[in-house]
């Protein structure tokens, strides 16, 4: 049975909100982010704003803007970016491989995916250190900085 409607355009290729919900969300590097739980629509323009991703019972959901969605397939939603917020919990090493600590908080530029500062917990009674994005060399499973631990401590003293 064919659908009748007054959409004004062909909708054969369109997907529905049901096609988007409950799908695995995978970032640019193949990392599993969570499951899409809500589709967000602007009430004024009626355009898609993004999706909300459920990360499990222990973590807060995150909202991903439509500009960061690469494509939607029958099995998953692919993002065009590595999600910066996923850096939380990563271990930070200095240039020589010395362990600095674990990422506790992340400061972003506005509401974009651009990292401003990492707040790294250095262990019991040693407080946290704020590391600017410019000091980061590699982000993969963990983070490797482009500076040494000594350089970082010197920067902290001067700032």
């Amino acid at each position: 049975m064919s659908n009748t409607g007054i959409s004004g355009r062909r909708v054969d290729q369109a997907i529905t909100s049901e096609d988007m919900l409950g799908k695995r969300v995978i970032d640019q590097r193949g990392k599993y982010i969570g499951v899409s739980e809500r589709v967000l629509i602007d009430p004024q323009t009626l355009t898609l704003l993004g999706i909300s991703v459920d990360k499990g019972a222990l973590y807060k959901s995150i909202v991903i803007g439509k500009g960061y969605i690469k494509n939607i397939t029958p099995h998953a939603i692919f993002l065009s970016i590595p999600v910066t917020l996923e850096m939380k919990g990563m271990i930070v090493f200095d240039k020589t491989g010395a362990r600095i600590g674990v990422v506790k908080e992340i400061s972003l530029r506005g509401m974009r995916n651009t990292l401003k500062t990492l707040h790294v917990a250095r262990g019991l009674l040693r407080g946290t250190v704020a590391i600017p994005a410019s000091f980061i060399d590699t982000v993969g499973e963990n983070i490797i900085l482009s500076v040494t631990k000594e350089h970082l401590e010197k920067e902290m003293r001067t700032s």
Partner: protein
Amino acid sequence: MSVSRVEPIFRSERPFDHTFNLGALEGAEVIAAQGAIVGRVKEVRVDPQTLRFEGILVRRSGGKPLYIGRSYIHRFSHRSLILNINPIVSLVEREVLRSDGKSLGKIHRIVRKGTSNDLVAIIIRPFFRKELVIPARAIKSTHHAVMLHSHYHVKHRYIWQKS
């Protein structure tokens, strides 16, 4: 040890303060190029003929120890050692995703070029299906899950089907 407390006896070799105590590397953390923790240095191996440093033996929390040649070492300090590779043997048990996001299963085995870190193929053993051999050229990225290129079409065969 400070230079002042050492009596030097050498000809054209590097002076004491320009050298590194390889023994101090034992127990140092080994970190892959992308930051993954590979294990800890168990032994430092030297060529008995040339006396040249050849590689390290890495103790891992799971699996066989790894012998990593010095050409794969990026830099080291007393505390840790950074590789210039992500050892592909650590891909075992990683999930493999088709370009449309469908999971094909987990990597069962890796085929490498000799003893190098160059990947030839990955082997998946899906449930109720025959082993699936995926060549390295079909792989798009291996950062987290192994992602395949969209042009690669997987042909599944059930165990009761002929090859």
